[in-house]
């Protein structure tokens, strides 16, 4: 294999800017996938991904293309996840490439997430090919977007490739530009093995299969390999290319992209960003940039039906096999029984897990209010990490609490600056700076307490900017804050699963909103239900739900008893989906009531 004929690249694009369609076209033109085999949007192969239009996991595929010099080139497209929750995974995909296509929608222009990924690509010294997509649309603003790009990249407008992934226009030219502009990999096959894991999948028969970019050295069957971060050793069974199907090869050498089968039981052992080397000929150091999975958002997952605890455990174990960023450990709640405290990369990641538990494992779960990890310093000089509000110590033991702060980048048309500033103030944001990207678009930078951005922040941002503003963020640091625990009591008893940690100034607001919301969500019961919000022993809000006064089959004659019984059974099923805490039946959505509090204005 002549590594000078290899091009490794990735596509940077905002959601909906046409990344998947563009990838489909590239696969088609290079005859990697025939038209017949082409499922729409080939790279997004999880149902959920296709529905949401977001790539959740990375994927990679190898294409061959005969260039005008009559030589066949190898093009490895390494796809990247398309959501802020997965920015670390993006950075590892980029580290496996020499170049990127920066794809921008001709009708939308550059967005925040695209920008942060672009900066990462620049930091990695990748060759950047600017591409404007959707030029076939009548509302395409090609000149405007060109201006944005030339300003952003300092390039000439004639360096921008204009394409329509939908019609196929410009795709051939784009392929040629990839070959011309993106440099071939520089690796040394004779050096000790260094292979970067940029993704990992789980196969029921063959175990965890890392997707790798070989940076230096050679990897082949029978090689004893060593994972730097995990410090585990395996023997390689098979290596190969990532075509439409896995294509076994004798070896992968420096510069190549492919997969490794090595009888690895769990994707935990093939963590993205880790470096594979040879056990008996170790590289002196791993490749830079590895970071262990760092969950940002935590929540309790409980089976609605207590008997399903073991099923939930098995299901999480299975999901973990192909999602190494999911963390969980058993916990118990007085209200909900036995369950798990789970750590997620972000709220989207949480939703995905919840959805997959339901779809793939048919388990109905209750998710408790998501929260972040707080650092609590006691008067005794102890430091505790608290990721479950009900574990917060009594106030008199606490010296101070620190909360995680993120640095957020919001790109928006300038007319929405006012709205965004107001939203930021509501969410305890600190405005850092603002810069105009062109005449009409602004890049705003804020520091936010992470917790303020996990409750419907993104949706709100979209609403107040008519969908135009885009967001990117990264963890910054921990800072002290005035925080306290807000408890919710039902008929006088605190429901631990409904507790949350809130900022002192917002306690009253949240308390009031939450009890109002719960009053709407919790159905009337045989007893009156009193809902209270309390800080310590101080009740700050109260609502009550009057006892049920209408649930009856009034007419039961004519003898069709079965029909009436079925009606009761339907109600029974509905009841089963609720959680009984004390005497009160609580619907699942009550535990996430906080997320929708704002909907009611």
């Amino acid at each position, binding site marked *: 294999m002549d590594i000078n004929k290899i091009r490794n690249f990735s596509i940077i694009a905002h959601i909906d800017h046409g990344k998947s369609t563009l990838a489909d076209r590239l696969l088609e033109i290079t005859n990697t996938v025939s038209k017949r085999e082409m499922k729409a949007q080939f790279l997004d192969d999880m149902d959920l991904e296709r529905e949401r239009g977001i790539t959740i996991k990375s994927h990679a595929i190898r294409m061959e293309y005969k260039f005008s010099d009559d030589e066949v080139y190898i093009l490895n497209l390494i796809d990247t996840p398309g959501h802020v929750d997965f920015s670390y995974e993006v950075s590892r995909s980029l580290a496996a490439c020499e170049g990127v296509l920066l794809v921008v929608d001709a009708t939308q222009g550059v967005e925040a997430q695209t920008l942060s990924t672009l900066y990462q690509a620049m930091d990695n010294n990748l060759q950047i090919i600017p591409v404007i997509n959707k030029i076939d649309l009548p509302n395409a603003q090609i000149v405007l977007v060109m201006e944005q790009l030339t300003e952003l990249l300092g390039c000439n407008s004639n360096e921008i490739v204009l394409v329509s992934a939908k019609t196929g226009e410009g795709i051939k030219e784009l392929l040629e530009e990839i070959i011309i502009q993106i440099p071939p990999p520089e690796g040394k096959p004779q050096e000790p093995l260094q292979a970067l894991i940029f993704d990992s999948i789980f196969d029921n028969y063959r175990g965890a299969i890392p997707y790798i970019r070989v940076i230096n050295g050679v990897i082949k069957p029978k090689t004893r390999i060593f994972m730097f971060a995990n410090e585990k050793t395996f023997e390689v069974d098979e290596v190969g290319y990532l075509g439409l199907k896995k294509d076994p090869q004798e070896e992968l050498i420096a510069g190549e992209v492919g997969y490794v089968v090595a009888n690895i039981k769990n994707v935990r052992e093939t963590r993205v960003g880790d470096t594979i080397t040879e056990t008996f000929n170790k590289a002196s150091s791993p490749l830079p940039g590895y970071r262990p999975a760092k969950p940002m958002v935590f929540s309790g997952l409980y089976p609605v039906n207590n008997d399903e605890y073991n099923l939930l455990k098995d299901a999480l174990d299975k999901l973990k096999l192909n999602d190494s960023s999911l963390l969980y450990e058993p916990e118990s709640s007085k209200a909900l029984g036995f369950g798990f405290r789970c750590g997620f990369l972000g709220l989207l990641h949480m939703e995905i897990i919840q959805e997959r538990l339901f779809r793939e494992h048919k388990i109905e779960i209750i998710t408790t209010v998501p929260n972040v990890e707080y650092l609590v310093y006691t008067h005794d000089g102890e430091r505790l990490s608290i990721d479950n509000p009900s574990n917060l110590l009594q106030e008199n033991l606490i010296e101070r609490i620190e909360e995680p702060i993120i640095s957020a980048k919001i790109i928006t048309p300038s007319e929405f600056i006012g709205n965004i500033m107001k939203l930021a103030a509501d969410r305890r944001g600190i405005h850092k700076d603002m810069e105009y990207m062109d005449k009409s678009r602004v890049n705003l930078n804020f520091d936010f307490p992470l917790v303020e951005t996990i409750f419907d922040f993104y949706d709100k941002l979209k609403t107040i900017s008519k969908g135009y503003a885009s967001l990117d963020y990264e963890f910054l640091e921990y800072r002290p804050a005035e925080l306290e625990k807000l408890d919710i009591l039902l008929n006088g008893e605190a429901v631990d699963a409904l507790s949350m940690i809130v900022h002192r100034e917002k306690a009253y607001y949240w308390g009031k909103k939450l009890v109002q919301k719960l009053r709407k969500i919790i159905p009337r019961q*045989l007893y009156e239900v009193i809902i209270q919000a309390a800080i310590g022993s101080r009740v700050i809000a109260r609502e009550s739900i009057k006892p049920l006064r209408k*649930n*009856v*089959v009034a007419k039961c004659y*004519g003898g069709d*008893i079965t029909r009436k019984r079925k009606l009761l059974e339907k*109600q029974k099923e509905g009841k089963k989906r609720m959680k009984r805490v004390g005497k009160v039946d609580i619907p699942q959505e009550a535990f996430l009531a906080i997320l929708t509090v704002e909907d009611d204005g």
Partner: protein
Amino acid sequence: MEQLYLYIHIPFCKSKCPYCNFYSVEELSLMDLYLETLIEEIRLYSEFIDFHKLQSIYLGGGTPSLLLPEHLKEIFTLFPVKDNMEITIETNPESLSYEKLKFYKEAGINRLSVGIQSILDKNLITLGRNHRTEEIYKILDLIDRRDFSNMSLDFIYNIPGQTMEDLEKEFDFIRTYNPKHISFYGLLVEEKTAFFNLYKEEKEDDLYGNMYLKISKELKELRYEHYEISNFCKEGYTCRHNQSYWNFSEYLGLGPSAASYINGERFKNPDSITDYINNIKNKKLSITEPEKRDERDILLERIFLGLRTNSGLNLSELSVKYNFNIPDVMTKISEYIPADLWYFRDNSIFLTAEGFLSSNTIILEINNIISDKNLTDFTFKAGYNRTTI
């Protein structure tokens, strides 16, 4: 069983009331064909059902008062009618007449149920009824109370737009007329009715409950016994036929959509007059497969039916069958069901009027407690068991 109760569904109405989800058609021209079929159906059943066990005949609908005297004559010649039988016909004020009443008497009908629904025109209009208050008074004048001492009046409450004051007028009327039996049905907006599209958004107010409790209280004061969720009567005037549905007696339903409970099996005729006619023309009963009820279903049925009436749910019987300890179950029930909704006497649970109002929830609660494996030493077998009760 020694006793049998007979229901005959007369599936015809001049026009369909917008709130009603009982099966009926407006093609009155099918009446003759229907009667032929009904007679054939009776003949088919008589091969294995002994009609000498009959305790009651109930002509329901639909609008049974659309039947002409000659129709009724034909039907009644098919059964051994005895003096002590309860024979009821449901009637509408607008289709009753002096002649019909006279004939009912002659035919042996001894119980009359008149669907007056309300004595206020505005409510009758909302309900889409074809009669008005005036006809109600007229027809009640025609009824000789000596012929039909056992008479029931049907009322509906929770009619859109109806007020508590309206209800007082119904009570005034009841006080004056003093019928032996009253059915007071709370209007529930049912699927597949015209009302469903109009009123499906449920109001969050307590009017339904307030009206219900008021009715129960008022009628009790007028010395009516509240003997079933929606039924009231003077002493000795319960509807024996309707009680067969609630106390697991055997009943046979004839005519489209009619339901039967025979030999522990529940089955019914289809909700289609054409299927009914076609099947029986081919000398074949038109019934559905018996419902597959497993032990859990039957337990739920017993609780549901037991708690409907003032006979109550007898825990002694259940505790033997399901092997539980009554005090354990009672402790749980006391914990989860507020005391004003029920009472316990002679090992049976009874619901109060407040309890009737939320009876579905209470039924499910009790069902849950009795099925709790920590309390009940009984293995529920899933699946259908033919010899169940």
